[in-house]
């Protein structure tokens, strides 16, 4: 029981530590708002001209735009934490609603990508390290280096050309075939079918990263003293690799995966734009053209919150893997 409460205290403490970060992001949002061209109210209304004068008055009052800047900041922060992100006239919905609507699709894409890139990356990296200096290792390393150099959006487009347009194996855009009105199991399969190209595209870059990292990590662990000890006890090379080295080697990969969550979110903007995947990223893309700064800032704030939460989860997973982490 003590074990659980220690971990619980750790979680609580990390949540507390997250608050100043969120506060900081809110402040950055506010500053960006000030930087944007035009009156703050215009920006908050989404698109100048399409809001009614009464609404603009209400906005000015709600956000205290007639008050001093520091007071505006406080009000803005209060609003953010109450999740009042404003209203979008173009979509005719609360900004929060718009974003939450799209969140699911992005989460699906990101989670799939995370598992794909980390999972396959670990396996490939391990395999490459086990066959170091053989052709399998060289092949994997070369493929990894090339994947690492490819721009995401280009890979998506090329995959689309080959697998969608020419081979017609996968659908080119969207998350599901809306006209078909699938339900239940069929719907799941349909979504999965649509998910394949976007997630492979997004995974490729990170797959390369984790493969190389895992390979280097495994090789580094093989040079460690405890491996010599294990050999001295009579352990076979396979036992050493799978029971000793593997768990130690995974740790830096998990740490790196944690760092990459923010980048992953950014990547999903591009991938969703290419594949028309109806998530936050595509929303951001569309918003760019509309120059709806307020919606953009809303997306920014929420994605930052998302990153903080995922970071915490990754940290938590890490504490289960490495007993050296001080929970105190």
């Amino acid at each position, binding site marked *: 029981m003590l074990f659980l409460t220690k971990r619980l*205290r750790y979680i*609580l*403490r990390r949540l*507390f530590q997250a608050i100043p970060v969120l506060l900081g992001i809110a402040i950055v949002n506010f500053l960006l708002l000030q930087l944007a061209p035009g009156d703050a109210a215009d920006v908050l209304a989404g698109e100048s001209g399409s809001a009614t004068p009464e609404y603009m008055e209400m906005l000015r009052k709600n956000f205290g735009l007639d008050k001093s800047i520091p007071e505006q900041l406080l009000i803005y922060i209060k609003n953010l934490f109450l999740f009042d992100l404003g209203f979008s006239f173009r979509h005719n919905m609360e900004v929060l609603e718009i974003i939450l609507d799209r969140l699911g699709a992005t989460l699906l894409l990101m989670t799939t990508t995370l598992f794909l890139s980390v999972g396959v990356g670990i396996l490939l990296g391990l395999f490459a390290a086990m066959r170091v200096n053989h052709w399998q290792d060289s092949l994997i390393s070369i493929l990894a280096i090339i994947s690492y150099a490819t721009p995401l959006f280009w890979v998506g487009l090329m995959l689309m050309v080959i697998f969608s347009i020419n081979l017609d194996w996968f659908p080119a855009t969207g998350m599901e075939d809306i006209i078909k009105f699938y339900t239940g199991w069929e719907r799941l399969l349909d979504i999965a079918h649509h998910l394949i190209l976007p997630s492979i595209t997004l995974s490729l870059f990170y797959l390369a990263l984790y493969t190389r990292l895992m390979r280097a990590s495994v090789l580094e662990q093989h040079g*460690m*003293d*405890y491996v*010599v*000890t*294990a*050999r*001295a*006890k*009579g*352990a*076979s*090379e396979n036992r050493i690799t799978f029971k*000793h080295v593997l*768990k*130690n080697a995974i740790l830096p990969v998990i740490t790196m995966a944690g760092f990459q969550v923010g980048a992953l979110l950014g990547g999903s903007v591009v991938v969703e734009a290419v594949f028309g995947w109806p998530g936050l990223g595509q929303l951001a893309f569309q918003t760019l053209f509309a120059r709806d700064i307020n919606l953009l800032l809303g997306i920014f704030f929420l994605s930052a919150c998302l990153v903080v939460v995922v970071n915490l989860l990754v940290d938590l997973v890490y504490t289960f*893997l*490495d*007993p*050296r982490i001080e929970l*105190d």
Partner: protein
Amino acid sequence: MSKNSLLEIQNLSISLPDGGDRSHAVDNLNLKIIENEILCVVGESGSGKSMMARSIMGLLPRRLKITGGEIKFEDRLLNHLTPKQFQKIRGLSIAMIFQEPMSALNPLHSIGKQIEEVLLLHTSLNKTERRQRILEMLSSVHLPDPQHVIQSYPHEISGGQRQRAMIAMALILEPKILIADEPTTALDVTTQAQILNLIRDLQREKQTGVIFITHDFGVVAEIADRIAVMKEGQLVEENEAQVILNSPQHIYTQELIRSVPDLKTPKPVESSKRVLLKVDHLEKIYQRRRGFLGSSKSKVFAVNKIQFTLRERETIGLVGESGSGKSTVARCIVKLISSDGGAILYQQKDLAKMDRKSMMPYRKEIQMVFQDPYGSLNPRLTVGQMVAQGPIIHGEKQTKAFQKAKELLELVGLGPQAVNRYPHEFSGGQRQRIGIARALALDPKILIADEPVSALDVSIQAQVLKLLGQIKQKLNFSMLFITHDLRVAAQVCDKIAVMYQGKLVEIGPTGKVFEDPQHEYTKSLLDSIPGRNWINPFSKNI
């Protein structure tokens, strides 16, 4: 009383990869391991003793290969075994323990799990039987609370306890041969004494043949039944322990033994002179902060109200084990760390309270020589630039500073051409000499030497200590000599100050402290010195 030989090494040669300064790590070595005895293989760094040990177990690093000879064990030739065949022998018939127990244990497996692995690999005991065996073994290595140790991770127990766990892991299947590769080198002297006793007791109990590798002749004197001396891959001399320790035949062995600082040379205490430095109730506190959801803060007194006086031309040895605070005291005096209480009085001025600017003139008076010959020199500066740095900072003209650098480098035994060379061109002992030259460049009245010879081989150590002695005679400075090695302290220091957990527990003239220690800790410290009863046959010559 002839005992059986367990293992025979015949004409063994191990090659090194190209590009090194030698072609072979081990060259035509012949050695026998006999049952129920401890064979100490002693040599300096690069002697090949570790590689010889590893080759027995087939654990040589990938780039080193056995190029000749045989290793016979139980009518098999070990150097011809396949990895699979080796796996059956390792841990069961021959076991090995290593120098650094923290890195030699898997940080992610509990102690119990790692010991259990040996049983899983070589026996068919069931879970309960395995647990029983492990608990028994942990008790025989005198680990307190074996139930708790089984579940603990390596980082949760102390260094000494880790080494005991490693010994348990190695001896649990009662192998015929135990290879111990510098198992106590990384341990404190008191812990070392306990582990040496443990190894000797277990060896006698199970009649194991032990190969004990070390560079420390004191350790050799403490536990060896037979001794083999190695130099640059070759066996130089081999005989019964008593013979080698009391009448070594080979010149190299003689040189090695001559270099071991003797315990029984009390320096004559000179009459009292002017006080140079007075350390008064010096304190350094470290706070361990714990978060607001955790427990309260805890204080650690790294230095706990220390006081002593250093007089002209005197050498005081500050001795203690790791964590005693001796290094912290040194760093407080030169203001590398700021102290939290007390005074450091030099010529009546309190250095402790000075800011950086006011400290500048006093920097010339107190200088430091450091421990790590590789970390204490900037790899990108020439030796001359490094030695001349000090005077230049304090206003000396470049040409004069470099001239002084040349003179100092000659004084420490390196020619004046050294000024244009880079540190990587010099050996460890030579680098320490450069460090000494750098410290002397400002003509200090006090030299603080923080473990200046601890990282050096024993023969080089003797040379550097001799050099320090000569220079001190010539330039007349005082020294605060910090070390964990009591033999070195005995040779170099007029007075000894013993530190334990931040406190100064005893201080007095060297001879008196060694012959008639007052404090409990001093007594246990002196008792722990390995080979303290051995009389160095060359002691008169130091």
